[in-house]
């Protein structure tokens, strides 16, 4: 009882106090805190290495970073070797192999990563001597070993393999290739082929030429004072030899004269990756660099215009952003999102709407003020990390910025006006001279995107940005789809020969990731059909039997013996006849001659076949040989339509004077499976009972 009273009292009390405050009033901020930015201490070694020290004793740890100010280089046919040089540095010294280096670093709980443009390392400050000792050994007693290069190459190639399924990686490659072009180092793409060409010699040369103290900036941050820092650096890196480092100049990549739409086909995609990008000339410390960053934050920062439009207003995406990179050679503007396939066109439209809006109309002062406050706060939050202070000092040196650039940053930021923002947008956002890159299901997305291209055409490219060849010739006058199919039947031996085929038994096999996949297809007239897929000769993945009326499915993908019904049954019926193409002229079928399209660099007649069951398939018949070389079927997956492509090659004559493809390559998105015909038996013994479950 007492408890209940207490509760009532508490409820009353809270209601009472609840009434006391006016929650509708948003609290006002207190006086703005002063943001202090101290200059780091700095000194230079005799070999030209410039060193900055930011002491901060909050945590008992220390971080050391090195930045080498080198121009990027062209890597020829061995793209990737500069990066690999950076990785190799951590894998060997004259006295230590990789395992010993790893053991040393882990033993003190430290972390060390190296790259071609420097290193980053951190540890507890009580182990700073050990940390500097290993860093010194890595840089001064470097030894590159073949076994480590081989290992890195193998790993890089495996990594590239996984990227083939990564739509963002594909978009990144294409963007590099288009925005910077192949005459600029930023446009170089690492592929399996270029990795194969990397040699130890290339890496050694790069290291010896470019990894030098006189182009280096080092920062020591954390629990260390200047005196100790000087002693440590002098001892570790005083003997590092300086040398002349070559400089390189490149033609600055220009934006396209008119906007181009570029599509990479990824038939399995459930989303489209959209990138709208072009090169920009924006150097660090440029007079309008701060206004440009305000503009980009307003347009494409977190919870900014792009995000609010595409995500919060329309729910097209999990996030839409833009990025404006500053760079001494050439920077880049990129607006990007991942959107579901069906709204690709609408999303591009909203992107362009926002890109034009920030240029064409002056942004409301209140909105700009909000961004200024946000960037002001971000600056303070950034200072929490002492590394920031060091990197500011390095930027000033490296890019020749005014000494007080960051000290004046907040003042300069506060003075950015809506007019400055618009001017920056007009200079750095060029929707009329951009690449609209979309990686997704081309069949669904390409056509509606054509209107955004100045040429009115969508360019299809591969995952490295190379054009996929387009068709050239118009269709011959009088050609019909039925004629193309008839030509095909003639090409594979003619109807007469095929009518003599009463049964057929085909065995195919493929190897995949160390496994052997076997496929057997058996057919008997009028329409008995069986297919069986086996893994490693034992495990039945899927078996389908059709006796002309009913079909049953079993195996790992369909445990038990399930009866097939509905649409799939109808499709089975259509495929079960001895030569399905011979039925294409029958009632219920619809053929549509789409035009000439390229398949594997050859011209083909493309025909859309609609089956009586309603399912559709696009088929490609070689213009010269008449043979069918490809079938593409789109199926409804749980996340939308998914395309499956079968390429039919290596037609050979078999018993009965008929031609049969001996190789079938099934492509499911970026994965493919090549099946070789191992055995074919024409008119072997079969009986109807074989096709009963």
């Amino acid at each position, binding site marked *: 009882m007492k408890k209940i009273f207490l509760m009532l009292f508490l409820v009353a009390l809270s209601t009472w106090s609840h009434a006391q405050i006016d929650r509708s009033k948003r*609290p006002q901020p207190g006086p703005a805190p002063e943001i202090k930015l101290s200059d780091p201490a700095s000194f230079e070694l005799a070999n030209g290495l410039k060193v900055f020290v930011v002491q901060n004793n909050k945590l008992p740890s220390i971080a050391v970073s090195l930045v080498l100010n080198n121009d990027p280089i062209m890597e020829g046919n061995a793209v990737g070797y500069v990066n690999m040089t950076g990785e190799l540095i951590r894998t060997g010294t004259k006295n230590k192999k990789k395992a010993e280096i790893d053991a040393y670093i882990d033993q003190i709980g430290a972390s060390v990563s190296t790259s071609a443009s420097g290193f980053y390392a951190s540890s507890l400050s009580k182990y700073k001597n050990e940390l500097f000792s290993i860093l010194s050994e890595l840089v001064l007693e470097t030894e590159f070993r073949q076994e480590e290069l081989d290992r890195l190459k193998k790993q890089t190639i495996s990594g590239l393999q*996984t990227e083939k399924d990564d739509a963002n990686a594909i978009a990144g490659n294409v963007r590099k290739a288009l925005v910077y072009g192949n005459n600029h180092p930023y446009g170089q793409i690492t592929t399996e082929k270029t990795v194969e060409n990397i040699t130890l010699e290339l890496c050694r040369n790069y290291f010896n030429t470019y990894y030098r103290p006189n182009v280096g900036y080092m920062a020591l941050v954390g629990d260390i004072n200047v005196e100790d820092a000087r002693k440590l650096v002098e001892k570790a890196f005083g003997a590092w030899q300086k040398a002349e480092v070559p400089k390189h100049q490149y033609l600055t990549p220009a934006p396209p004269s008119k906007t181009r739409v570029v599509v990479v086909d990824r038939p399995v995609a459930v989303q489209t990756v959209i990138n709208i990008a072009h090169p920009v000339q924006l150097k660090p410390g440029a007079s309008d660099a701060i206004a440009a960053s305000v503009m980009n934050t307003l347009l494409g920062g977190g919870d900014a215009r792009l995000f609010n439009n595409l995500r919060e207003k329309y729910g097209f995406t999990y996030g839409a952003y833009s990025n404006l990179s500053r760079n001494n050679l050439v920077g880049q503007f990129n607006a990007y999102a991942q959107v579901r396939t069906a709204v690709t066109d609408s999303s591009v439209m909203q992107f362009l709407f926002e890109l034009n809006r920030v240029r064409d109309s002056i942004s409301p002062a209140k909105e700009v003020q909000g961004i200024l406050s946000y960037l002001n706060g971000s600056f303070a939050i950034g200072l929490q990390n002492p590394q920031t202070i060091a990197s500011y000092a390095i930027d000033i040196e490296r890019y020749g910025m005014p000494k007080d650039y960051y000290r004046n940053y907040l003042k300069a930021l506060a003075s950015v006006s809506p007019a400055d923002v618009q001017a920056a947008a007009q200079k750095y956002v060029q929707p009329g001279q951009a690449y609209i890159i979309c990686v997704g299901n081309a069949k669904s997305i390409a056509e509606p995107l054509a209107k955004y291209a100045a040429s009115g055409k969508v360019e299809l490219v591969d995952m490295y940005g190379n054009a996929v060849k387009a068709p050239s010739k118009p269709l011959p006058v009088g050609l019909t789809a039925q004629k193309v199919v008839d030509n095909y039947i003639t090409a594979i031996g003619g109807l007469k020969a095929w009518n003599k085929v009463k049964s057929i038994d085909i065995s195919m096999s493929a190897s995949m990731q160390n496994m052997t996949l076997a496929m057997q297809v058996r057919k008997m007239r009028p329409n008995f059909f069986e297919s069986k897929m086996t893994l490693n000769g034992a495990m039945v993945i899927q078996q389908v039997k059709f006796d002309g009326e009913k079909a049953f499915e079993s195996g790992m993908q369909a445990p038990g013996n399930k009866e097939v019904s509905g649409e799939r049954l109808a499709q089975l019926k259509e495929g079960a006849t001895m030569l399905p193409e011979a039925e294409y002229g029958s009632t219920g079928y619809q053929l549509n001659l789409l035009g000439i399209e390229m398949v594997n660099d050859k011209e083909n007649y493309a025909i859309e076949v609609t089956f009586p069951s309603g399912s559709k398939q696009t088929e490609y018949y070689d213009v010269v040989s008449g043979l069918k070389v490809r079938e593409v079927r789109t199926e409804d997956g749980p996340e939308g339509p998914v395309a499956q492509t079968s390429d039919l090659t290596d037609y050979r004559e078999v018993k009965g004077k008929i031609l049969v493809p001996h190789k079938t390559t099934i492509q499911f998105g970026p994965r493919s499976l090549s099946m070789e015909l191992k055995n074919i038996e024409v008119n072997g013994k079969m009986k109807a009972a074989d096709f009963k479950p």
Partner: protein
Amino acid sequence: MKKIGSWLLLLMLAPGLQAQQAIKFEKYELKNGMRVILHQDKSTPIVAVTVSYRVGSKNEHPDRTGFAHFFEHLLFEGSQHIGRGEYMKMVKENGGTLNANTSFDRTFYFEILPSNQLELGLWMESERLLHAKIEDIGIETQREVVKEERRQRYDNTPYGGLLDETMKRTFKVHPYGRSIIGSMDHLNSAKRDEFYDFYKTFYVPENAVLSIAGDIDIKQAKIWIEKYFGSIPRGGRPIPRPTVKEPAQTAEVRDTVYDNIQLPAVVHSFKIPARGASEFYAVDMLTKLLSQGQSSRFQKNIVDQQQKALFVGAFPLALEDHSVALMFGIVNMGVGPDQLESAMSEEYERVKTELISEQELQKLLNQVENDFVSANARVEGIAESLSDYWMWQGDPNLINTEIESYRKVTREDIRKAAQKYLTTNNRVTLHFLPKPTN
């Protein structure tokens, strides 16, 4: 957990690490049951305001999975006094950043603001707790956004479905077996009332920890906290918490998953003790032995020497009811998943039979110490650690003292942990293979 009246403020001073100053903090409880924790750090003029709600995917109804994560989205939609779409904007326009995340056990919201905006942060979080807008328009929009999140993170990303596939086989009974992002069908069929009920049940002061770290005036902070949170009534509804325990596994679970990937992957998941359990520390160190740093056994033996994997790692998922040690490897090109799996199993066997060296133990302790120090590099990290320690282990001061539990672990403890938990019977094994064809 100790009960502390709101009038009794405890100043917690604890012996810390050798060099690091102990993290000082104050903790107390409001009359409505909300727990508050304050840490002052004046080195940068910023403050992290965080609220952690003890509701995660494990509290969901089996037919309504994805609710906890959905709320993480919904509760940025606005409140009685904050218009739709204003929540994020308000933080940003005041120089701050914000975000949130959802786990199996809890949902965590935070803002990092200039220190003169502490009151704003408190007001905003109190709006979220007291009267967030649960409206159709917000629900509809966030449903679409969550579907895109799912497509982006799970369906359009190689190996994106890995955690879901693993957890559903690891937990047959316990709700940890259900996906955090949940079922889109469940979200589609949920009615507005159900969202409202969920909010009224879990988003209540007695189910929350408010943790603040940064450049604050403690006295002023307390006044504002009382003003904005002290007056919020208790929810009072019973808060459903799963009591079901996952029965011990008696035989290995093995399965194959086909995914849109190029290279096969192998997953082993082992059930291990809950976070805070004394044995957890030994298992945690065991996972570091296997995969932290390039000299770790997985990295050194499987990636570098045998070159069977592109990547292989061991990840402890520290959870309230049962933790999981997740081992995950992607094969190198030309290597089969069986080969990688046997290489991983060899490492388990080795640590079960051979005692690790004194030197290895020292290495692990150095790594643990380094991890503790790095976790405290930012105010938001400190606020989150304090909050988590209080919520799960009843003592925020573990931020200073938990390292002692690691120091007590012996070489024998690590071997024992391997023998007890890295067993075939306690294991779920999954092979991820590229989808052959449709």
